[in-house]
C-alpha cells in the first residue's frame, strides 16, 4: 500500500520553479487573461479583419459600401502611390541607419564609460519623452529655419552644395526638404534605438574586453570581434523599433517637409480623414503592413536572431 501514497520519482530532473499541483487554480490563468485578451481581440484583431473587408469593398459614402471583392483597389493604390511608398522606406531606412550611428556611441558611453554620471545621462535620454513629441518636432522648425545658424553654418561649410546636388536639400533651405524630414525622424526615434542598445551592451561582461586586450587585440578589433557581435540583439531590436514606426509616421513629413516629401502615412491619413475614400485607404494601410512584415521577416532571418521576437 505504501507505493500508492509515495510520490513516483520525477521523470525529468526537478526544476526549482515547479509548482505544487493546484486543484482550484486550473481556470485561474484563463480568468486572468480574459479581459485583456478580449480587449485586444475586439479592438486590435477584429479591426484588422474589418479593414481587410473594407479594402475589397466598392461604393460611395452616400450610398454605402458593399463587399464586392474588388481587388483592383490594391493595384490602383499601388500604381498611384508607389512614390510615397518608396519615399517612406527610403526615409525610414536613412533615419534608422543614422539612429544606429548616432545612438551606438551614446549607448556605449552609458554602458561602459559614464561611471557615476550613468543615471543622469539615462534621465536626460528619457526625459525629453515627457515633453510632447509634437512640441519638440516643432522646435526643429526653429533650429533649421531659413537664415538660422544651422543653415548658415552648413552654407559656409558648403555642405548644402553637396546635399543639394544629391537632392536632399534645395537651394539655401533645409526646411521643407528630405533632409529636414530625415533629421526629424532620426530625432524622434533615437531613444528607441538607444534603450535596446544600452540593454544589450550592459549585459556584456567587461572581463571579455580585458581578455581580448590581453590577447593583443587593438581597441578597434575588440569592438569589431567582441563588443559589436555581442550587442547584435540590441542592434536588431533597435533597428526594428525605429524602422517600423518611422515608415508609418506622417507627423515629421507634415511639419518639416513639403508636398514633395509626403510619406505613405500622409496619404493614408488624408484618404481616411479628408478624402473619405475608405477602400483605398484600407488597401494602402494593408499594403504598408504587408510590406513591413515582409521586410522585417527577411531582416530577422538575415540577422539570424529569430529567437528574439
Amino acid at each position, binding site marked *: 500500500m505504501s507505493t500508492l501514497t509515495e510520490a513516483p520519482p520525477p521523470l525529468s530532473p526537478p526544476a526549482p520553479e515547479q509548482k505544487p499541483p493546484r486543484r482550484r487554480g486550473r481556470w485561474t490563468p484563463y480568468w486572468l487573461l480574459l479581459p485583456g485578451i478580449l480587449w*485586444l481581440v475586439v479592438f*486590435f484583431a477584429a479591426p484588422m479583419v474589418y479593414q481587410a473587408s473594407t479594402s475589397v469593398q466598392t461604393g460611395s459614402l452616400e450610398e454605402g459600401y458593399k463587399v464586392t471583392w474588388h481587388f483592383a483597389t490594391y493595384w490602383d493604390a499601388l500604381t498611384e502611390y508607389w512614390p510615397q511608398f518608396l519615399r517612406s522606406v527610403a526615409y525610414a531606412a536613412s533615419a534608422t541607419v543614422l539612429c544606429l550611428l548616432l545612438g551606438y556611441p551614446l549607448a556605449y558611453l552609458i554602458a561602459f564609460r559614464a561611471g557615476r554620471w550613468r543615471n543622469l545621462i539615462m*534621465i536626460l535620454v528619457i526625459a*525629453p519623452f515627457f515633453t510632447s513629441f*509634437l*512640441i519638440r518636432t516643432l522646435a*526643429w522648425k526653429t533650429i533649421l529655419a531659413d537664415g538660422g545658424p544651422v543653415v548658415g553654418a552648413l552654407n559656409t561649410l558648403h555642405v548644402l552644395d553637396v546635399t543639394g546636388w544629391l537632392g536632399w536639400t534645395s537651394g539655401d533651405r533645409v526646411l521643407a526638404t528630405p533632409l529636414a524630414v530625415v533629421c526629424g525622424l532620426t530625432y524622434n526615434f533615437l531613444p528607441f534605438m538607444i534603450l535596446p542598445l544600452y540593454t544589450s551592451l550592459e549585459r556584456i561582461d567587461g572581463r571579455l574586453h580585458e581578455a581580448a586586450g590581453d590577447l593583443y587585440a587593438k581597441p578597434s578589433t575588440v569592438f569589431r570581434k567582441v563588443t559589436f557581435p555581442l550587442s547584435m540583439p540590441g542592434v536588431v531590436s533597435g533597428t526594428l523599433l525605429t524602422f*517600423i514606426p518611422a515608415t508609418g509616421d506622417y*507627423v515629421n513629413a507634415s511639419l518639416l517637409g513639403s508636398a514633395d516629401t509626403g510619406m505613405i502615412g500622409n496619404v493614408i491619413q488624408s484618404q481616411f480623414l479628408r478624402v473619405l475614400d*475608405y477602400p483605398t485607404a484600407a488597401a494602402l494601410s494593408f499594403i504598408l503592413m504587408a510590406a513591413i512584415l515582409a521586410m522585417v521577416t527577411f531582416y530577422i532571418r538575415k540577422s539570424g536572431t529569430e529567437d528574439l521576437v
Partner: protein
Amino acid sequence: MAFVNWFKRHVVVIAGLLTLAYLLLPNVVVTVFSFNKPNGRFNYEWQQFSTDAWKDPCGVAGLCGSLSLSLQIALWATLGATALGTAIAFALVRYRFRARGAINSLIFLPMAMPEVVMAASLLTLFLNMGAQLGFWTILIAHIMFCLSFVVTAVKARVMSMDPRLEQAAQDLYAGPFQTFVRVTLPIAAPGIAAGALLAFALSFDDFIITNFNAGSTVTFPMFVWGSAQRGTPVQINVVGTAMFVIAVLFVLVSMVLGNRRNRRKA
C-alpha cells in the same frame, strides 16, 4: 600629437555627448522660446524676452481644456491598461496553458504595427459600428495600444521573481489573498510602476491614433498639431518646458528616495 591621442582615447565619449546634445537641443529651444514675445502668430523666431506666457499659461482658448482632457484620458488609460496588462503578465509567467504562443504574438503585434495602420483599422471598426467618436473611443484606443507595453514591463519583473518566496508565505499559513497582497504585489510593484509610467507617457503623448479616433474632441497633442497650422502660442512652449522639468524632478526624487531606502536596508 597630444591632442590626436587625447581625441582617439575619448572619441566614444565625444560622439556620445554630441548625440546627447542632439537629443536635448529641441528641449533647450522649447525652453528658451517659452520666454519669447513673438511678433505675429508663429513662435519660430526670437523677438524679445518676456515672461508673459509663464504668468498666464491658460491665456489661449482651448489649451488648458485640451491639457486636462489629455491628463484625464492618460490617467484612465493607465489604470485600465495596467490592470489588464498585469493580469496577463502574471498568467503568462506563472501558468502553463494552451494557446500561449498565440497569446504571445497577440501581445507582440500591436507593438510591431505602424501606428497609422492600427489607427485606421480601429476607425474602420468604429465607423462600422456607428460609434460616436470622442472621449470613449480615444480611451478604448489608448488602453489597446498601452496594454502590450505594460505586459512586457511587468513580465520582465515577474520572471525574475523567486516563486519560493510565495511558497514560504504559504508555509507560514498565509492565504492566497494575503500572499498576493503582502508578498507578490510588493515584489512586482517596480515592474507594475514602470509599466504604468510608460502607459501614462504613451497615452498622454499619442497623436496618430488619437487623431483618427477622436472625432471633434481635442486632446493636447491635437491642440499642438492644430496650432502648427493656425499659429503657435508661446504657452505651448511653457507647457512643454514644465513637462520636461516635472519629469526630471520626478525621476530625481524617486531615485533619491530609492537610494535612501536601499541604504537603510544595507
